[in-house]
């Protein structure tokens, strides 16, 4: 079983098919990444440096906007990505 799944070419996050440990090294498309924090199974890791307020891509599509800078190898989820849709609070 692969450790990760990158769904589409232009995605800047990947899905962890197993939990990844801090400090672990993984190779994606020939490039080495150091996992910077524990990431639970099926959650996402950034594979690019995603700037605050820029889009996060999975399935080759926008799944939200970064609320902080997210560096490659970091855990990408609800704590640093917000939705662009259904925002009655904004």
């Amino acid at each position, binding site marked *: *079983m692969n450790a990760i799944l990158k769904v589409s070419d232009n995605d800047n996050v990947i899905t962890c098919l197993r939990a990844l440990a801090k400090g672990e090294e993984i190779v994606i498309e020939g490039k080495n990444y150091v996992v910077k924090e524990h990431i*639970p199974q099926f959650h996402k890791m950034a594979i690019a440096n995603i700037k605050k307020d820029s889009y996060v891509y999975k*399935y080759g599509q926008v799944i939200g906007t970064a609320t902080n800078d997210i560096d490659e190898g970091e855990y990408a989820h*609800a704590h640093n990505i*917000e*939705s662009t849709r259904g925002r009655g609070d904004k």
Partner: protein
Amino acid sequence: MKLMGYKRQDGSFGIRNHILVIPASVCAVETAAKIAKSVQGAVSLPHQHGCCQVGADFEQTVRTFVNFGKHPNVGAVLVVGLGCEGIQSKSVADQIATTGKPVEYIIIQENGGTPKTIARGTEILSRMALEISKIQREEFDISELVLGLECGGSDPTSGIASNPAIGKASDMLLSLGGSSVLSETTEVIGAEHLLVDRFKTEEQKKKFLKMVDDTEKRAIAMGEDLRGTQPTPGNIAGGITTIEEKSLGCMHKAGTAFDFVDCIDYAEQVSRDNKGLYYMDTPGQDMDSVTGEVAGGCHMVVFTTGRGTPTGCAIAPVIKITGNSTTYHNMIDNIDLNAGKIITDGATVDEVGQEIFDEIIKVANGKLTKAEILGHNEFGLARIGFDF
């Protein structure tokens, strides 16, 4: 391909042979449930509706009750009313009777209260049970089959494994001339630009996009971030971050091989003269969505779940499929198939799609799903208005 089902008076075929007790309003729900419990094979619909509703909201509730009664998995119907409610039992019964199946109604106020109504209802159901038990399964073409596509308690495995696999199974049914129904408009938000190209006419495209826009506007009108409701706390704990991510995974249920033939309202019936892939406007909430699909004529529902969910439907088998192997083993009493082997064992979407299609055939021919075995008869009716 041929299946074995129960031929109905209107030429349709059912894959189950239920007696359905429909309470016309919440005031008749308990009495209806007691009547149904007294006769084998009878099921009742628990709900909170049927009185003091107005306009389109009233019509949608009536349409749901009537189309449940008309459903080919139902052999006979008893409508139970209090008497004074907004939805009148006689009107519901008359509309169901156009199918030619046995339908009767009883009124609690006219029968002198609960015990006498239960006694009278039990007599009627016993007679109906005897009558419909004589119907034998006979051959019908798979092109008559209508499949509901549902996901609930999703996690990221749903978009990766189980939803693409049921999409494949749906494509196989569609290629044999059958029909499938995709729904859950909330879970289209963020993926509508991809699905809209699969509608044929400008009118359908416009209708579809309006459904998504109306749903998002209703959410925004509540003045909150939709996240926390959609995706749910469980979706988020599983690893889904936003509604866009959830929707982009959900849309895989629609398969890849066919365009939509039409875009229909909640609980509106799929046409037997226009078979193919349909979109139905329902909420993302599972029970509301499954109820809408089944009212629309779905004989059964394939239901993917990453987190695990037990729910079923009173009149239609629900096949549970998870993309998460841990959930499969954790909730083995509720989950029928494991699509998680796409992730853990290198199985292909096509292989698991074939396995799901084979299970659809078995269930159509009479194999029970785990939701049926455990008596999961949930019923949820989507409302578009208030009680007054």
